[in-house]
């Protein structure tokens, strides 16, 4: 078993934080950084530095999921090996849709999001690690102090941010399961390990979340105090399905083209283009669809 400090580093790498930090905060979290550099920052400053990094990480991760839902001609679809010439979820604004709904409106109470996210973060850190040592090469630089601070900062953010941004723990979870199904996803293009996966590996990653018997579910349950244990694992099972359903709903819906001020569309939504919905863009107040009545019967009675 890895030593505690190594576990933390590996864990932070697996949820994408170290990689994103190294790219977006050069000198702070990269291999060259010293523990002293970050220790001098203090938790508060580090949280401020990390928050936008984590936001970008979440977006990159969900880009990977949205392309998985409906592939198109974008980089994420190409990376997963299923590029398509027609627009897909990325072009439909599916990522913004997911982030907004997860962060602003998914009505999970803060009181459950925070402990659940914290449980997720701490539980994942102790899962068995099927990662070859050489793959960790570039991420083992920061000192024990640094790693501890970074982990504390992530925990601080998921536990304390007033808006309880659910997109972040969801992204961290996707990145974690990505490294489970393919450890090579620790390194490569994009910030997010999940976004680096092939289409088939993304499906395997989702299987980790959705499968009822998943060890992940049991482990997270074990980190949450009663009486919430079964609730957290149940919510995770709910989340597995909901990610698929919500992404599809957003990708094929009108939200990107909807102007709430005028309650009208600013253009033809991608989902309408793809499905041929309302081909002439008419307002939808009626169709010349009446073929009559079956067997000309207008009324039935028991008499």
């Amino acid at each position, binding site marked *: 078993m890895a030593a505690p400090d190594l576990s933390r580093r590996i864990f932070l790498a697996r949820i994408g934080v170290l990689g994103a930090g190294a790219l977006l905060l050069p000198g702070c979290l990269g291999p060259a950084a010293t523990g002293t550099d970050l220790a001098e920052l203090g938790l508060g400053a580090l949280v401020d530095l990390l928050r936008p990094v984590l936001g970008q990480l979440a977006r990159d991760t969900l880009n990977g999921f949205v392309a*998985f*839902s*409906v*592939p198109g001609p974008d980089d994420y679809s190409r990376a997963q090996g*299923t590029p*398509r010439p027609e627009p897909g979820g990325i072009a439909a604004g599916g990522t913004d849709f997911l982030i907004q709904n997860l962060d602003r*409106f998914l*009505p999970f109470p803060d*009181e*459950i999001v925070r402990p659940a996210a914290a449980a997720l973060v701490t539980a994942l850190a102790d899962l068995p690690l099927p990662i070859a040592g050489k793959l960790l090469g570039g991420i083992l630089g920061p000192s024990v102090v640094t790693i501890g601070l970074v982990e504390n900062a992530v925990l601080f953010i998921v536990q304390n941010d007033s808006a309880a941004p659910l997109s972040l723990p969801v992204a961290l979870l996707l990145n974690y399961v990505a490294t489970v199904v393919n450890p090579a996803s620790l390194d490569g293009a994009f910030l997010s390990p999940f976004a680096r996966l092939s289409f088939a590996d993304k*499906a*395997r990653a989702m*299987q980790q979340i*959705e*499968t009822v018997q998943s060890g992940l579910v049991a482990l997270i349950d074990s980190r949450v105090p009663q009486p*919430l244990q*079964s*609730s957290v694992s*149940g*919510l995770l*099972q709910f989340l*597995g*399905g909901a990610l*698929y*359903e*919500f992404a*599809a*709903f*957003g*990708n*094929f*819906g009108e*939200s990107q083209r*909807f102007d709430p001020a005028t309650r*009208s*569309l600013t253009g033809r939504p991608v*989902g309408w283009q*793809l*499905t*041929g*919905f309302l081909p002439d863009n*008419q*307002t*939808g*107040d*009626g*169709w*010349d*669809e*009446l*073929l*009559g*009545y*079956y*067997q000309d*019967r*207008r*009324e*039935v009675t*028991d008499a």
Partner: protein
Amino acid sequence: MRDVIVIGAGGGGPVVAKELAARGLSVLLLEAGARHADPRAEWTHFENDANNPLTGFLRFGPADRTKPAWFRELPQNSFLFQVAGVGGTTQHYFGNCPRAYPGVFAGYDGPDAAAYDTAHRFPLRYADLVPYYEWVEATLPVQTAAMGRKERTFFDGCEAIGLAVQTTKTTLGDSFRPQQNAILQPGGTAGLTRDVTQLAFPQATGCTLCGYCLQGCMEPIRAPRNLFAKRSTDNSYVPMALTADAWSPGGVPVALIADAYATRILTQTVNGQLVATGVTWRIGATGEVHTETAQVVVMAGGTTESPRLWFNSGLPNPNDWVGRGYTDHYFDLMVGLFDKATDSSRGAASAARADFPGHGGMENIGLGPALQAFAMQLSDSGARGFYSNGRGFTGPWDGPSGRPIGPELKDALQNGIDRLLNLLILTDDDVEAQNRVVLSALPADEHGPVPKVIFRPRNRTARTLANREFLVRKATDILRGAGATKVFRLDWAPLILHVQSTMRMGMSADDSVLDDTAEARWVKRLFIADNSALANALGGPNPTLTSQALATRTAEQIFQRYFGGAPWVTRESPVVSTDDRVTQAVIARGL
């Protein structure tokens, strides 16, 4: 003190309110969500704007859309499809009004009597409910649905497999038919044009076949509210309730308060008997708390919400059946792809059905692209071709059950939203104690502890599972008969939408909450008039009509038992909700 307080202005509450207001009682109707008094100014036809479960105007949440929706705990892969606001789930329902199968009622002795949920029959006979069915069917009114291309496609499939045609309101055997829908059928230019300049009332009357039943009905343009095509209660019973003085001699208009969330039923003990005495509610916009007393209280907040309110009010539960016995028709979805037009997204959302008494039924359903995609991602069988969650059933459909993902989903939908046909499977599912509503251990909201809805889809009775398998095979045959080139079986995770029987009336006091008049067994002057009062899953037919018929009967029972009145349903003729007296009052009062 009011005569009656009704909690919930959904499918059932307004029925009781309207019937008792017509008798001259003072009735207060509370609705937790918004009152959409001017749909043309508040609604659109867009799916995300309407149906997003977190932000849509038809979500389950406060009237103020800037506030988050109400959280309900679902400890399994599932989706609880609730709707707040005056009209409740009838705002998005399809208006389908089949009657329950006779086999689910007491005294049924047909040759297939053993084929139903025999342990949980209604404590009344089918014939006892027929007058109330007829009353509601005349009031809404319920009419035989017109046929568009997707119905024609469905009928082609039914004819191809030799299924009989049903020409009665009572379902007597395996058969198909146009729906009996609570929708005013097309008149004038409606159904004949897509030109919006030709589709305003009164040039167009009734259903314009716009395809947006699920987004709330506001057709035809400029029609008075009670003449909108779909007879959701916000377009039928609520306008009648608010104008009871205009069309019923001695009638008293109902007082309606929206954004009013009932948090507690008040009780006191009288002569050793617990009696309901009033209701406490909270106004969402201000947080103000109000209490009023009443001679009778009627719970009608819904199949998930009524158990919650019961628990949060500290009411007794001596047999532990409060919240238990949740039935949901254990839906499944079959999607057929065609190489010809089906016009699935157009016309009334569901205007055709097939019934198989003893097993359940099915109906065609039309959806827009976002909800079609949503519907094709809901599955308990994982991702087709990648993982099956231990299921991945094979059968006459193509490939294993499960959600098509990525390129396969895109290919299916690029085939065309109007070149597919959905068949919704309505399983006759058994009342099971394990499927239930309890209070969540998660933090309470401003209305108290929240409900947790527990379903165990993999542990349902053998009869329920067999019924679902029977129906998905029939549906596949129908889709193939209609010419489908590819058939998907989604194996839906629980989509908790047809909701019944959590506060069930029953023949036995051991496994029911209500007696045969829908009064609570352990709290007098407390009645229930939503789907939770239903004794069982009706055999599979859509529940709203039966719930409304039962609510009409409950109103009569209340009037006789506690107000010394006489029954009216078998003695009088109903006033139809489109009656000109209602229309004129709606216009004059700006309703």
